[in-house]
């Protein structure tokens, strides 16, 4: 039963990633693209966690945690750059 649920989860997260990619390419505002990348990172974390359940391995969580941190930091750094023209003042 978990296998079927996992297949649905993989399909949903992958389709969500494709929709985010469409928004990333389409824009139109600059911040739309930043938002699309931020959402893509969250979808990738969900994919990694589902892959961890699929492989029955806990080794994937470090990767998910790293993605979460880098996604957040890059979003904030980019917004900071747009707001102030500099990341670290």
């Amino acid at each position, binding site marked *: 039963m978990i296998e079927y649920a*996992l297949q649905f989860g993989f399909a*949903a997260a992958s389709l969500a990633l494709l929709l985010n990619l469409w928004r990333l390419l389409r824009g139109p505002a600059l*911040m*739309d693209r930043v938002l699309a990348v931020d959402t893509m990172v*969250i979808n990738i974390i969900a994919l990694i*966690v589902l892959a961890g359940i699929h492989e029955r391995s806990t080794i994937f969580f*470090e990767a998910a945690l790293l993605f979460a941190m880098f996604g957040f930091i890059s979003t*904030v750094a980019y*917004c900071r750059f747009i707001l102030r023209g500099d990341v670290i003042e």
Partner: protein
Amino acid sequence: MTFVLELLVSLLIVGGGAFLLIGSIGMVKLPDLLTRLHAPTKATTLGVGGALVASMVFFAGLEGTLSIHEVLITAFLFMTAPISAHFIAKAHLHEHTELRDGLPPTGRPVGWSTFDAAPGAGEADEDDGRRGAHD
């Protein structure tokens, strides 16, 4: 007992996947950025939370290896999603200054928050608001 746990994990995965998909469909369908911000910050965060809780139940209940990583990732995501959404909205407002003209008057001696400094704010805060607005 095993069946109940498997059912719970499956329901959480399906619910999480559905929320991920709804969040991304919302980001494609909604009309402009400030409405589009709602879909990923609420639905997608809930979706990834569902997947992480499913993973936690799966490893603790069925595999017998309790891991605390999922709680860490969930807490981190739930803390950072509002912050990044706030930053994106603020950067968008300062990038498109014509959005400021559509705002109604505040009815108070100070203007709207991110464009004007707060009343009685220190020099650092005032500097933050002014420079961001006019850059």
